[in-house]
């Protein structure tokens, strides 16, 4: 059963260093394709570091490995992923007249997955549109 979360894409040191090494390097691809979660959320969903999760909204979907965030960096209900090809697949084209798409604080659903729906590479391919199912919390995606 999918649960609703708020996704924060952002910068990390490793994303910055591997970016200079090249976007096709294993380090960069791993960094932008790993989802960080609060340890409590992982425990509740019976997830372990490296398990695949499917994250989706009304724009697109990604299937990526997850790992526990350091210490108390993430509160429960919040997800983090380094900026890049994967996070952008969940970003809509509409900027609401601002020029800036909603790029942080994205409403998404998450559920454990078994196989990647989209290969975690930097190659741009069309992301399938997933129809969101009913959220399990009171805050539904827009």
């Amino acid at each position: 059963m999918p649960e609703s979360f708020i996704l924060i894409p952002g910068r990390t040191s490793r994303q910055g260093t591997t970016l200079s090494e090249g976007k096709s390097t294993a380090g960069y691809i791993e960094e932008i394709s790993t989802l960080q979660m609060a340890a409590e959320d992982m425990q509740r969903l019976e997830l372990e570091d490296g398990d695949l999760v499917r994250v989706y909204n009304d724009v697109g979907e990604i299937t990526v490995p997850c790992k526990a965030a350091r210490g108390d960096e993430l509160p429960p209900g919040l997800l983090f992923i380094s900026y890049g090809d994967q996070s952008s697949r969940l970003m809509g084209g509409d900027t609401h007249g601002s020029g800036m798409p909603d790029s942080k604080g994205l409403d998404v659903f998450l559920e454990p997955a078994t196989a990647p729906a989209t290969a975690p590479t930097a190659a741009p391919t069309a992301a399938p549109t997933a129809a969101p199912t009913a959220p399990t919390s009171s805050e539904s995606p827009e």
Partner: protein
Amino acid sequence: MSTPEPSNTAAPAAPASSSESSSELRVIEDATCTFCGCVCDDMVLTVEGNRITKAKNACVLGKAWFFNHHIEDRPEALIDGEPAGYDAAMDRAAEILLSAKFPLTYGLSDTTSEAQRVAVAITDWIGGIIDTTTSVCHGPSGIAFQGVGEVTCSLGEVKNRADYVIFWGGNPAESHPRHFTKYSLMPKGEFVPRGRKDRTAVLIDVRKTKSAKAVDHFLQVKPRRDFELAWALRALARGLELDESIEETTGIKLEKLHEIMDGMKRAKFGVILFGMGVTMTRGKHLNSEAILALARDMNQHTRWNAKPMRGHGNVTGADNVVTWSTGFPFGVHLGSGFPRFNPGEFTASDVLARGEADAALIIASDPMSNFSQPARDHLASIPSVVLDPKLSDTARTAAVAFTVSTYGINTGGTVYRMDDIPIPLRPAFESPFKSDLEILRGIESRIRQIQLADVSLDKSDETSADVA
């Protein structure tokens, strides 16, 4: 508007000549790092041949930048994926851009201001849209500046005066690693002689990032509640009463907000340094406006400023150049013969996602890997001209892809630090590849030759008709 060639810009500093650079070890002092908006200009680079082997004073991001930009074995250019020379590629680029009805120029944050200036000129000659990565960075703050203004200062003033520093919606420890030590927290300044001991530091963020360890107060705001938090602090600044329910709204206890506001009022010189956690979240320019208005309001009590934490090396230069060329900072349409600014209408994400642009000139940016899927799909479907030192996803899909030298490492010029201070580059070694500036001048020159030839033909037609 610049003339086609030669440009009247000052000649950029020349890199060490290739004859010097065989395997001789050289040291470049006061070199400039262009990875992030700090634009640190105290680098000491050791160069062996065509490779930087040491980068003293560089942070982890700077080291990765310097150590990974060496000369790659690639063709000068690709036309439809096939290797080509610069001349043929510039001819084809001019042809594509002149054939377009609604061309888009985009990127520009990782190149020199001299090149940015020529990109604006090209866009004007072809009647296109000029937009920069600002629109997906601090573009909302640019909109907010027009709404409420910006009480601002330089990072030098922050270093020498700031005794109360608020980081809001950013993680400088990872995105701008030397900001704390060079400007905002640790340095001893004229009016903060004990450095960190003379400063109070606050971090406001939805995540307890690495930056939280560096501050005195961490306020974990609820996601998408930055506006409400800024508005609550504005109310307290004005002495208004707030309900305890503000904790439910923002995640921060009222008592804590009072404590922070008391400290802000006691400060002699305060600054709010805000990041993309503010501009990329729902509310966007309204979030920036609220923070800028808070800084403005605080000047009823003491001196306060607000500054955006800018990202890529010369994104601030892009704002400056586009502004002094067109009157607006980004998202400018030049197709009507005069500049029109309208975020949402003339910004790259929008004109691509809506399928409007019919050609693109992309400089030093990789929208194919970080734009929305509809925008990427459209960009892949139109002819594009791409300038990049690396073979990016955007370069891979380009009709014409130029391999260019890397600014700051191979190419001189000017870069603006995040506080609008222009800084010269001191390149380390020569590249066999041309710079963005040289390629853009070549394209501009070709565009003007074709346009002027067309004008001459029109005139001769008119003369013939008159005679007849």
